[in-house]
């Protein structure tokens, strides 16, 4: 219960900041003013400025927007592709099941972040390709979870009753299976969001995520690297932002999972 509250609060804070940044940030994040570079923490700049004189607080706020949007879109895409695949595998069995599961195994065999980097490098950098790359390695996760949960349901008598009512396997998957596995998928999606956010930060860090001048937590980390001795604040602030949001999603997912499991 406490995990859900803390996780939910962290996510609500991040989402609130991201939404606010759409309307207002203290300073323009694209405005470069080298004269005001590396200013320390002050009333005017609560988190100081970076090496190009941009306000760090404004960058973090706008960065939240990018990070959350990319992870949400990626996980939503993965859900939209993976869940139907998993449902089909469970409903059809046989070669269809084998095909879906073995392709998933192949994807799982690659380190997922490396795969995303490879894909973004091939497709070219940018937010849309980052979404695609992150979605790709989340597809087998959702296919697997959906299939596992659906397989259990297909042995239940209410599915047999639906078949006696002449319902097709597709109709049964949508009417009976999907509503009964929605909670499990929701929990998994929350956990995957934490990983997607980390992946987005990783892609941006190596320059394959959203492109400048749009701010991004991952790139802020990369740019802070050379200044780590003189202004460690530039690395610590985006690092903490990533940490807190990933932690928020992970806590929320774990908490929801514990709540769903009656034995927990």
């Amino acid at each position: 219960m406490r995990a859900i509250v803390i996780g939910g609060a962290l996510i609500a804070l991040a989402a609130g900041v991201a939404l606010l940044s759409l309307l207002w940030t203290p300073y323009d994040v694209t405005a470069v003013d080298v004269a005001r570079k590396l200013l320390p923490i002050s009333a005017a700049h609560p988190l100081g400025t970076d090496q190009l004189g941009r306000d760090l607080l404004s960058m973090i706020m706008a960065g939240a927007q990018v990070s959350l949007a990319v992870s949400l879109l990626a996980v939503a895409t993965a859900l939209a592709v993976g869940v139907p695949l998993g449902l089909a595998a469970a409903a059809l069995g046989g070669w269809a099941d084998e095909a879906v599961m073995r392709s998933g195994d192949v994807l799982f065999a690659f380190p997922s972040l490396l795969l995303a980097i490879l894909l973004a490098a091939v497709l070219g950098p940018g937010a849309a390709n980052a979404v695609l790359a992150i979605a790709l390695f989340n597809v087998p996760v959702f296919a697997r979870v959906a299939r596992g949960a659906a397989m259990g349901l297909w042995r239940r008598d209410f599915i047999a009753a639906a078949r006696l009512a002449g319902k097709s396997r597709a109709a049964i998957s949508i009417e009976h299976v999907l509503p009964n596995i929605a909670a499990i998928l929701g929990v998994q999606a929350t956990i995957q969001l934490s990983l997607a956010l980390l992946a987005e930060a990783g892609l941006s860090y190596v320059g394959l995520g959203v492109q400048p001048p749009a701010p991004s937590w991952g790139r802020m980390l990369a740019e802070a690297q050379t200044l780590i001795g003189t202004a460690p604040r530039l690395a610590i602030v985006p690092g903490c932002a990533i940490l807190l949001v990933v932690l928020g999603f992970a806590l929320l997912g774990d908490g929801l999972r514990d709540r769903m499991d009656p034995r927990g």
Partner: protein
Amino acid sequence: MSLLSIEGLTVAYGGQVAVRDVSLAVAPGEIIALVGESGSGKSTVALAAMGLLPGSATTGGRITVAGQALDRLGPRDLDRLRGRTVSMIFQEPLTALNPAMRIGAQVAEAIRLHGRVSRREADARAGEVLARVGLPAEVAPPSRYPHELSGGQRQRVAIAIAIAAGPDLLIADEPTTALDVTTQAHVLALLRRLVAEDGMGLLLVSHDLAVVAGMADRIFVMKDGALVEEGPAAGLLADPRQPYTRTLVASARHRPARAAPPESAPLLEVCGVSRRHGALLAVDDASFTVGRGETVGLVGESGSGKTTLLRTILALDPPQAGDVLLGGESIVQARGAALRRLRRNVQAVFQDPGGSLDPRHRVERIVAEPLHLLDQRIDPAERRRRVEQALGQVGLSGADADRFPHQFSGGQRQRIAIARALIVEPALVVLDEAVSALDVSVRAGILDLLADLSARLGLSYLFVSHDLAMMRHVADRLVVLRKGRIVEQGRTADILARPAHAYTAELLAATPDLDAALARRAAAQA
């Protein structure tokens, strides 16, 4: 002096009273039965006697085991008491055993916990105890794991563990409910023998009056947490005083009024159906028929292939050989519109009403689902009217259509499942252990409903069950299935009077029967 004495026991969880002012006693060599339906609090009494109630329970009253008051004992004394003085066996032997430990080691552990013996000696004694419960090394070596045993053998291991340290009192909570009837008969005989040989006291918790009638010296009847009636077994069952006990005994004896079916052409013809699961031939060349208006009982124990055969008849799984004809047409080969038309004539009711209703759908949507089989779509008003009509036929109200399954009791849920089967006005309803999971009083109501529907609507039933005692009263003809083969079929009265196959005779002898048990007792006393 009694081994177990419970005086004025009251147990509550939160504000909810589960057991109210229950008193009973068990003497050495005595079998006491605690009888009640689900939710009566009988298992709570058994757990309290072991000192195993969860910490959230508040208790009142006194429990004394072998002269020691349980509430005066510390945790270590309680541990010493359990196993050595009082021991317990549970309903499901699979969950009561450690799956990762050899059975011999599990029995030896129970011995070593309660006496200073060497490992070697404990192993030797474990072998002896296992042999005593009917598992000598040539049948089941102590090196076996629980999953390598049958359900009955696992329950024997659980009993071996329970008696390993030579307890004075054994508590058995529905010890044979999860077992087949022939296995149940063997396990019950084993318990009787152990009581007779060791002079142990046995507290037998059960819902099954027929089982209790053959076992108990005294019976205590519980309802809603309180004792309703107690007395010597034979007297209480033959002449119950309290209205509830009378209802219970009448329900166990219940036979729905049925008319003889008209002679007619067969509605369902199962012709030489075979189906294998991998190397196992689950159903081997099964053939039988069900006539219009007739009730046919398909009898078999777990693993006999009755569920596989049923799923083939319902065209849920295809057979590898043979055919299933409904009104002369093959349901196995039918596709599309033809299959939909045939499906309108055969519907099913499954065993567990909890599992056969989608928990996320309202009753209206559940009951209306087979209307999908109609050739033309019907409008919502007409759909609602038909759902309410079907609910009315099973004794539920139209307003129930707006509720969810979890808002109903087990018996009501089974009525919803029957309403779903009836909504397309089928000629044949397949009942897969449809009343096995229900309490006896609820079961009697459902059996009456089925008989009434058959009389009014001319329905045929294929009644699949392991319970021969019930089949006696509901089936016109019986089909006996064993290891995938039909070993015998014929008119119910003929088969029960003169079983032709040895397996049928064994099944019949093992089936607990209230009247037969009482007759045996009367004969033994005379």
